[in-house]
């Protein structure tokens, strides 16, 4: 009996370790958030500006509310669930867009600095120092004051946040790779700089960059919240997670659900992204299996 059992046990797959439960949950949450963001217009029960004045400040279901407003309503009688769904869409768009822009710009500038050295590197380092020493809120404030506010501009502006960290990491790691080891070896084989950086250096340092990106993702969400709270971010009647938190702050004691629902979404999403990034970093490394 035992012999047959042993014989039928399949050999362990060499590099396909099981996905840890926590990471699976995080993945599921991110997928759910993405689905919500994509389907926001069809799954929201009410319009985000639809008022239900007779059901103002209704608590969520289970706390004395009714099934008509699952997560309750705010003081104008707007459905919190509907607003949350649309907020997730806007905030994810801003956070993902900004993170991708920051990572792309930062990595490109970092590689340019590492490749050309000399005055190009000095220029990039100067830009990095400028960005790092400038309070980003003030920069954002002046840009938004001069150019007005639109969603594409806001995403692009948020993309300026955190690029300097990517640039520093990319430059440092690329210089290290060029000085010794594989990049020098590939250069010696006659490869073009583009091939060295895209095919060899980038995949090798991607793990670090991914972790850096997952760190800046929550920061962008929080920054967006801060700017929206100051009235410079997403403008009403449009809504975002930060906008909702800022708005719900005034009702914290009387109607905490207005603030808690978007806060929970921020915390869970940023935590999931961090967990996923951490796991990805390990998975992308063939020497750690």
């Amino acid at each position, binding site marked *: 009996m035992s012999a047959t059992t042993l014989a039928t046990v399949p050999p362990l797959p060499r590099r396909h370790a099981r996905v840890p439960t926590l990471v699976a949950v995080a993945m599921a949450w991110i997928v759910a958030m993405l689905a919500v963001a994509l389907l926001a217009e069809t799954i929201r029960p009410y319009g985000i500006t639809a008022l239900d004045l007779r059901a103002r400040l209704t608590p969520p279901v289970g706390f004395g509310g009714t099934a008509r407003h699952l997560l309750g309503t705010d003081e104008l009688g707007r459905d919190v669930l509907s607003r949350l769904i649309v907020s997730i869409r806007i905030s994810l768009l801003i956070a993902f867009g900004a993170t991708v822009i920051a990572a792309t710009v930062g990595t490109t500038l970092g590689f340019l600095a590492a490749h050309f050295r000399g005055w190009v590197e000095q220029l990039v380092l100067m830009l990095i120092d400028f960005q790092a020493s400038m309070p980003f809120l003030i920069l954002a404030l002046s840009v938004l004051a001069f150019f007005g506010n639109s969603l594409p501009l806001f995403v692009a502006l948020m993309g300026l946040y955190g690029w300097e960290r990517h640039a520093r990491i990319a430059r440092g790691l690329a210089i290290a790779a060029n000085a*010794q*080891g*594989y990049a*020098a*070896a*590939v250069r*010696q*084989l*006659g*490869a*073009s*700089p583009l*091939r060295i950086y895209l095919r*060899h250096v980038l*995949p*090798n340092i991607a793990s670090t960059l991914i972790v850096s990106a997952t760190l800046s993702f929550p920061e962008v969400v929080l920054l967006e919240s801060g700017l929206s709270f100051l009235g410079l971010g997403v403008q009403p009647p449009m809504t975002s997670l930060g906008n909702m938190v800022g708005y719900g702050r005034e009702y914290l004691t009387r109607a905490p659900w207005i603030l808690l629902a978007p806060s929970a979404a921020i915390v869970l999403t940023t935590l999931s992204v961090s967990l996923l990034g951490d796991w990805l970093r390990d998975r992308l*490394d*063939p*020497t750690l299996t």
Partner: protein
Amino acid sequence: MTDLLELAGVSRVYASRRGLIGRAVAVRAVDDVSLRLAAGRTLGIVGESGCGKSTTGRLALGLERPDQGIVRFEGEPMPAPGSPVWRRLRARMQLVYQDPLGAMDRRLTIATQIEEPLVIHDIGNAAERRDRVAALLRDVGLRPDHAARHPHELSGGQRQRAVLARALATDPALLVCDEPVSALDVSIQAQVVNMLTDLQQARGIAMLFISHDLKVVRQVSHEVAVMYLGRTVEQGDPEAIFADPVHPYSRALVSAIPVPGARRRERIVLTGDPPNPADRPKGCAFHPRCPVAVAACRVETPALQTLPDGREVACHLAPGTIRKAA
């Protein structure tokens, strides 16, 4: 017939800064070195660490530009590193590294990396490249199933074989081996060295073999150059140099080779400070450690002189060039 590789009076100077506010000090890593290497031959370069062996190798490959002198490959001056001509020339000359793990991309499989030079230099189509990789693996003694592995899944010797296969992929005319076996076990060293000489004979590759291991250099080289502090101190036939070294530094090096079975010979142990290329002694660089130094050695830098047997030696006291101490 022109030489495949010629280094004519090359020097390479690095600026090194000491401390936070120290002035930059010029370090002459390589100082007025001239070498010639014909196709299919092996030139061994020996010397202790910091003597400029590796820099000489990098200069020969054109990875660095000499501050003085000129490097010619097949009669043509070496193009500037990174230029398109230089990149194309990589197919004709390759480097074998001391640390094979560091020289390979740990994210790519062995086959991908061996194929890479063929892709870079646009040699053959996908099927031909696959066949070539299989043939190269066979030539360096790796099994076909090693192709799908990653570098960290191979042993040190197998990795060095893979690096060698990558270097040989484009059929280079010149191979610079920078301490290729120093990181390997002695038993593996012998295998790799034998494979290297077999491949060299089969393909007619010229080799610049850089090592501090005199036994290995003696085994593979047709000619040997002994370097001390960036300069060639003795150069010539390996049998002559190892049997009867003329320069006091070569004598000390050769006396340090362990001889199995033999009673211990006289062992010359060098005293004095180890050499510092940033603070080169005046005159002959070796005189502070030289057991037979005379007054002239402190003043005048000896030039390379040809001995009757064809060897070149840079020493005031070499036979035939003996000069009375002032």
